[in-house]
């Protein structure tokens, strides 16, 4: 029982730290709120969908920027998509970098775009790792028979 409590505290601390460090924002909390008995795996479902999409998008972005004649419109569309889904998930830092990315796209600044791509990849990987850790924690709690606490 104590381990559950400990896990739950750990979970709360971790989530709070994620929020404080700017990896997550309220939108993620909102997502968690949407999950209920009728829709028990909502968050996991959405997040895994996000990861799939994001991998695809990052690939697309990389290829698009490697072209000789970069189609900024295309890049911008990808970046926008990435920004939209990130913001829906609540991946705050990814969203912010995407916004920068879009700015560089509008300015047709290839260097900036490439820099941003690197940044986005980095942020995305960070986010993915953090989130996966969070889910692992959640699983542990569930396995220990506890319930996942809500973090406001």
């Amino acid at each position, binding site marked *: 029982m104590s381990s559950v409590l400990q896990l739950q505290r750990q979970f709360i601390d971790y989530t709070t730290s994620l929020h404080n460090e*700017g990896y997550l924002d309220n*939108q993620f909390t*909102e*997502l968690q*709120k*949407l999950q*209920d008995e009728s*829709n028990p795996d*909502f968050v996991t*479902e*959405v997040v895994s*969908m*996000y990861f799939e*999409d994001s991998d695809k998008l990052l690939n697309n972005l990389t290829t698009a920027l490697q072209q000789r004649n970069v189609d900024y419109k295309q890049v911008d*569309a990808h970046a*926008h*998509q990435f920004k*939209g*889904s990130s*913001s*829906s*998930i*609540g991946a*705050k*830092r990814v969203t*912010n970098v995407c*916004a*920068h990315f879009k*700015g560089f796209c509008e300015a047709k600044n290839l260097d900036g775009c490439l820099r941003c791509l690197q940044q986005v990849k980095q942020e995305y990987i960070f986010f993915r790792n953090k989130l996966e850790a969070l889910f692992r924690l959640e699983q542990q709690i569930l396995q220990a028979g506890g319930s996942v606490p809500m973090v406001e």
Partner: protein
Amino acid sequence: MSFIHLIGFVLKVGHFILMLCCSMSCLITSVEMKLNQSGKLWVKFVEIFTKYSSMINVHNYQHIGSRKLRKTWLKKLLILWIAFGTIVCLWIFWYLRSQALEKRKETLGNMCDERARMLQDQFNVSMNHVQAMSILISTFHHGKNPSAIDQETFAKYTERTAFERPLTSGVAYAVRVLHSEREQFEKQQGWTIKKMPLIKKDKYNPEELEPSPIQPEYAPVIFAQETVAHVISLDMFTGKEDRENVLRARALGKGVLTAPLDLVKSNRLGVILTFAVYNRDLPSNATQGERIKATDGYLGGVYDIRSLVEKLLQQLASKQTIYVNVYDTTNISNPISMYGTNVPDTGLEHVSPLNFGDPSRKHEMRCRFTQVPPWQILAISTSFGIFVITMLVGHIFHATVNRIAKVEDDYHEMSVLKKHAEDADLAKSQFLATVSHEIRTPMNGVLGMLDMLMDTVLDVTQQDYVRTAQASGKALVSLINAVLDQAKIESGKLELEAVHFELRAILDDVLSLFSGKSQEKGIELAAYVSDKVPETLIGDPGRFRQIITNLMGNSIKFTEKGHIFVTVHLQEEVMDTIDVESESSSKDTLSGLPVADRNRSWEVFRPMGQNAGPSESITLIISVEDTGVGIPLDAQNRIFTPFMQVGPSISRIHGGTGIGLSISKCLVNLMNGEIGFSSVPNIGSTFTFTAVFLNPNGQQVNGQSKSNSQFCNMLAVIVDQRPIRAEVSRYHIQPLGMHVKIVPSLTGMRSLLTKGSQTVHVVLVEEDIWDQDLSKSSAFVYKLRNLDHQVPPKLFLLTNSIGGPRQCNGFSSPPVITKPLRVNMLAGSLQRAMGGYKDNARNGEIPNLSKLLIGRKILVVDDNNVNLRVAAGALKKYGAEVTCADSGKKAISLLEPPHAFDACFMDIQMPEMDGFQATKMIRKTEHTINNRIQNGDLLLQDYAYISKWHVPILAMTADVIQATHEQCLRSGMDGYVSKPFEANQLYQEVSRFFL
């Protein structure tokens, strides 16, 4: 007589001209005088004048050159007038002169006639006497034998009767002697009959006279008056004149006159009157022969005309004024002067005929004034005067014409300048509009970047810098927006939209906006909307909100204590003034502080009937009342002028540009309303405006229809001593579905609780009542807890400011609801507090949303899978049935009627076809189908019996810039929600369609 007439006439003419002159000179002199007098009057005059001339001007404006035409015409008129005046004065001169001449002539005639008559009378008298003497001689000389008369007797008699013959210098009698009797006669008399001497001999010596030559008969003088005694013995037949005279007298039997002749001896000019003496009394019709036969002798009288006339004239007054000449005009071609001197011609002459009783002789008197006629002073001065007046009037006319022309020219110049100024102003506005728009775009970029900068890892100082920059940027954007609005309004580009909106929600929003500030300052902020105002209205919510925000922003800026109170009524309601608010006395206000009289702020508004629009339009009257510093009286008339503030220090203390009120006024005007205010310094200001909106239902909906089931039929009691405040609280609580009771004090509340049969669920106590007597309050709390009822009522405090936790006599203070009250906030607070009653709600809003969305079929369109999934999840959470589409095209095909969707959430930025295009397409399809259904081309039953297809489409966007919003509405969307969903906003938007 005529002279008086003339004077009268001249006076009349003069008067008329003077009047004319006065009325015109008034115009000019007043101009000149007022110039000196005071500039204000002069300006006024010029205004009137300008108006007059502008009237002419407007009239003639089309015809270029008509002004010139008029000018020459006026010049002609002027010349005509001067010519007319000159002619008039010449005529008057002539008239007066002729009158004077006439008069002079008349005077002369009168004098002359008088003299002639007198002369004639006296002559006749003398003649008569001479005739009487002839009879005397006939009787006493020839009738008696021997004669009773001798020379001595005759001389004596004639001498003594000379007074009877004033005009004769002497009389003599010559007897008729035939040649046969000559010798005897000469012997008898003792002298020979002598011949008359030649006239104009210097000396007269009887001794040298020759005897008369032999003639058939003689007429020697036998008797003579002493004065003419020298003619005795002279034969009258020998003098040429005398002979003719004698012959004529004998033949006619009347007195006859000689032509003027030089008298013997005296050599003076004289006339001799001769009467024949007959030996018997002849009948009047006796023939000449008989008369000659009967002749005995001849009696002659000598008239010395000169002395006679002089004697006569001396008897008359004013003999010096005229010259008198007497002429014998028997021979008209050569009149013989009998009296008078030859004097220089003085022009005027009057001739009076003289009749001395001899028909064969004609005489006349000619009179002349001794002096030439004097200068016609009267005529000259009168005509000169009139001439001067004419010239004066002409001058005035000329001056007036010149003045008018000058004013007209000035007016033209002014109007040209005015047009330039207006053009410049318009250009300025357009420039401002363009520039501010251009500034806004990069500013949004700056703000966005700052936002993102805030989200990066920053230290405290950096965060402070960024926050400051962000705040400044926001202030700048709002300022630019204001300027843009002003410019748009000035260049007439601002158009209002007409969309459904909820007035109450907007008011709540605005209250929330200012709640922070009001709580900081401890000011009570409240809104009240009359029940008669419909739930939804059609109009421009953004602009409406802008006006309210402006007014409230001002109020909150200048209010340090008291309250700010927004009320919304129907105009007809207020005009009736049977309302809780309007019957309130000045003491009965929200915060108890006095306020400016609200009624005065709209007393200048048009009366109701005048702004009657279409029947479904309703006019709202909105007042914002505060207890601030008020507006100084001298600044009150310019507060609606752009960029005008009460004083320069205001912007330094309170900030602002001074265009808020001016924009508000323009916006109100665009809404067919009016804005007014009344303000008392140090008491407060009340701004009131009216605005016309459309009522979508055409009928009024009671606000209570939207009741929250959770609180239905609960009883809330408000403890408040101020009726208005209680009424406002009631207004906010009632929409929740609660019954509301108002009691003025805690004591009243307690008695209500003890004897009340109803269960009281909520008690709301105003803070000031609570703080009045804390011991009483704690007792009350105690009482509440130990009530016989199963569930004690929930107690809340209504407060204006955020204070620390309250403690009173051991009891912790009841939960506090901070004003301003808003329906949502109130519902949330109550729910939180009453969690025990209902356990289904984790979030206050969810029940509402669930209620709205449950069972609704909603289409969500987004190209981003994650977003789609999240949005769908969120909507499903509220019980909606969600269908997903990942492109605009799919959405179009899904939304082609007939379909079963209740609403559609559409992402804006999508590849291939963005949300705007998709929406436009959908609306187009709907429109075509609606038309065809209406025309009967399509059967109604195929379209689920819906004749008007219009699926609500809400945009989902992360971009909440106003411009995007406008674009949403333009492309046919019904609203927009931010992405990711925000429950409150989602509720607000969705509630517009699903209520």
